[in-house]
């Protein structure tokens, strides 16, 4: 594929991704703003893939080594930290369910 054909193709998926990004979170409740921000934060950790490509390239000089290595470290911190922190937040949201039921039954008793 020639460079220009590739570029046009890449621009096409870029534009589609913009619309998809808007569409997919258009109706998010305030309740989830924090976890969603944290979750998208983890997803842009995909930059670690780019960092791997840089560090994994052949014929590197010292500069490439240092920059590539730093990029891999930063990218991995982004990925792992992002997903773990989001999971911790969402775990607590899940625990809401039993508490809700307990509360409902207690209300029932009060009512009778």
């Amino acid at each position, binding site marked *: 594929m020639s460079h220009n054909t590739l570029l046009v193709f890449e621009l096409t998926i870029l534009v589609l*991704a913009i619309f998809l990004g808007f569409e997919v979170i258009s109706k998010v409740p*305030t309740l989830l703003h*924090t976890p969603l921000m944290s979750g998208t*934060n983890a997803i842009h950790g995909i930059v670690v*893939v780019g960092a791997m490509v840089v560090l994994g390239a052949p014929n590197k000089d010292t500069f490439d080594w240092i920059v590539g290595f730093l990029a891999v470290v930063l990218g991995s911190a*982004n990925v792992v930290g992002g997903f773990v*922190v989001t999971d911790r*937040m969402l775990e607590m949201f899940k625990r809401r369910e039993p508490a809700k039921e307990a509360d409902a039954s207690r209300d029932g008793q009060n009512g009778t």
Partner: protein
Amino acid sequence: MSTNLANLLYLIPIVAFIVALRFLSNPAHARRGNQIGAVGMLVAVVVTWVKIGTTSWWAIAVGMLIGGAFGAVAARRVKMTAMPQMVALFNGVGGGAAALIALAEVHRVLPEPGAPKVDISLAIVLSALIGAISFAGSLVAFAKLQELIGGRPITYAGQQFVNGVVLLVAVGSGVALVSGVQDEWLLWTLVAAALLLGVLFVLPIGGADMPVVISLLNAFTGLAVAASGFELENNVLIVAGMLVGASGTLLTVLMGRAMNRSIANVLFGAFGQVSESAAAVAAGTDGGSVRSANAEDVAVMLAFAHKVVFVPGYGLAVAQAQHDVRQLADLLEEKGVEVTYAIHPVAGRMPGHMNVLLAEANVPYPQLKEMDEANPEFGRTDVVLVVGANDVVNPDARNNEGSPIYGMPILNVDQAQTVVVLKRSMNPGFAGIENPLFYNPKTVMLFGDAKDSIDRLIEDVKGL
């Protein structure tokens, strides 16, 4: 592995990320969504690993171990109250990685014969610029929220001019690079200017606006990553980066709307510019007197009320008092008092932050009332207990056009019979704005650490 096969396999993470975002928008599936995203990420890393082959695999492994271990430990250890700055930090390192990739690419591309292709240089310039702004800006946001530096807006004369000059330097070197000047130092200049710009751009923004800024920087990092995708001709970077760029932008707008502020207004300094009139307002309230009460009085008020509304703010989170508040609420309920919590959309340091904290304390979800639901109730509420909230109950937002927060929707707690404010001292809150609620004749102040005060209230209510 061929590039075609790799691109085909990259469809797995791409679909996973889209599903993850979809699921994250719904409380019922949010955690599953995040896990799907993590699996997608793992697939992307493995595919890339195999594609690269054996070149420098050990360096990649060591780098991933160091970064991953740091991320995992930091994310495990962080308290829920410190969550916003942790998100800022992880966002910053992502932006930093994108900027570093740009530096490496320019170093690789420039020595090649002939001028680099315009679209490649443009992608390099954009990812370096946006990535470096996001990196430096996020670190400043982290430092502000961690209170390493003051949370108040930092302003000085000629600020806009200095920012303009720095921006001009960054854009100038970028344009030179794209137009074919082959000098690696141009990119270094650009990165240095962009780092400075990131610092200058976040410093003047007040602490209360920080969540919106973090969300915007999050979108920035997404854009920088998408640009890296063009440099490296890598689809998964383009799609994932742009998904985050677009959804992050929308999220930023939604947050701004919750505070009734435009994004431009958040960024370009309403808080900074009107600080003088805010000072004037503060001077005006000095004349009013403040009533302070002791815990026994407040306990009696609470125990004999029909309806009590708790208004939690960041002070509650700082004092780690969410569990104690729940105990007090349970006690009051046993005495037949109707208890609810009124949650302002931007209570805490992030939209939705307070819901996370109260969920942590197992507060039953139906008791949490959002602003629109809570406001009509204050008229028939006997006692409102404001625990460490300040700006979100400031009547100036409704009444005083000179106030920096004028127009922000607030919880109308001053419509209740009595307002009890738990507060450490009379210092103005995080945003540095005076609050006339404290001088309202209906208001009594209960000074002290929020956790200690609540514990005293619990003891006194038990004793009644």
